[in-house]
């Protein structure tokens, strides 16, 4: 029971459930207009209390990312994906760029060097994504 399908100990489970569904919507795994798993389906999958799963669903519904259809279930609202991607971009700076800059400063990498490194890494990723072989 420890490994609740990859959920961690550090944050409330309902927030993790909401986060995972939001990820799926942002990645397109759950399309707009598609039915999302029910409270009981989520509870069984993650092996958690159904009330906790419901709280996660309601968090997204309150944000307007899911819509309830009475007697049928919850569905991904239209425009949900666009809104989530916009949120993610905002979070990106705080979550990734700020620590990157801090760590770079600690290692004595100046901003110009850092930008060069980012560019190189970005080119390498592009080559890999095209199926190319480096070296």
């Amino acid at each position, binding site marked *: 029971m420890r490994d609740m399908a990859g959920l961690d100990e550090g*944050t409330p489970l309902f927030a993790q459930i909401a986060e995972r569904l939001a990820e799926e919507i942002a990645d397109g795994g759950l399309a707009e207009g598609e039915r999302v798993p029910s409270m*009981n389906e989520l509870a069984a999958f993650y092996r958690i209390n159904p009330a906790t799963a419901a709280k996660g669903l309601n968090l997204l519904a309150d944000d307007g990312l899911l819509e309830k259809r009475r007697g049928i279930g919850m569905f991904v609202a239209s425009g949900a994906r666009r809104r989530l991607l916009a949120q993610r971009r905002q979070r990106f700076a705080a979550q990734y760029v700020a620590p990157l800059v801090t760590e770079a400063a600690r290692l004595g990498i100046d901003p110009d060097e850092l930008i060069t490194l980012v560019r190189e890494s970005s080119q390498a990723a592009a080559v890999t994504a095209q199926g190319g072989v480096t070296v």
Partner: protein
Amino acid sequence: MTPVISVTGLTRRYRDHVALDQVSLEVEAGSIVGLLGRNGAGKTTLLRILAGQEFPSAGDVLVHGAPPAENEAVLRRMVFVREDQTYPDFKVRHALRVASWFYPNWNAELADALLADFGLPAGRAIKKLSRGMRSALGIVIGLAARADVTLFDEPYAGLDAVARQIFYDRLLADYAEHPRTILLSTHLIDEAAGLLERVIVIDRGRIVLTADADDLRGVATAVSGPVLAVDEFTAGRVVWDRRRVASRVSVVVVGGLDEADRLLARSLQLDLTPLTLQQLVVQAAAQPADTLERTSA
């Protein structure tokens, strides 16, 4: 909502030993509640009193609005599965039949499915069952009774991890379809943590914590690193359980951490590890009462 279980000022004394000391609690209908604490903390005494199998020395206990002891109307709506339950000289099948007469919501199909899940032979004499299989029988009865109030007191003595997982999964599945009030006393806290909506922590006969289980996640974090860095990080915070080896310290910080705290910890090169519910319960029991409620409020 009216609570299905309501306990006020409950004290239970045995000669010179106080098993329960001024316990007050309420349990809402339709939730799974964990009753957590060490052996001898008073969990079994509390459950036995709720099940009407023992009388309070003082205080009031109401289940469905009435005292449970010698109250058949209340007791038929309640099932109590205790650790190491003993049975008359029966076969498994007979024990199930007797249970089916007593519990108005008994579901024979569920009982049969659970027997198969646990690999319990219906024709076997109960006294020939292993300890784990006897525990499984208790679980089958506890779930198939579908009683409004279901009390499980450490129901899995002798059951291995696989069988316990079957218990948790079947409990969740049946609860989802037939919501009811389930009180589960357990010392395998981390295993059951995800199932629980509320937790009640009892220590030396007193309630030391009641909370939504999910609210306790992330409420305490182990922080470790060099002494100076840990001291800088923990200044002004509530700290439990400081331990030190050479120039390295490990402490438990109480209270949620935000993004800024995490960045600070990272820049100080500290390791952050959230406490599991089990670790939190161990820590909470060692602190003065309601430290945690004050800090998480």
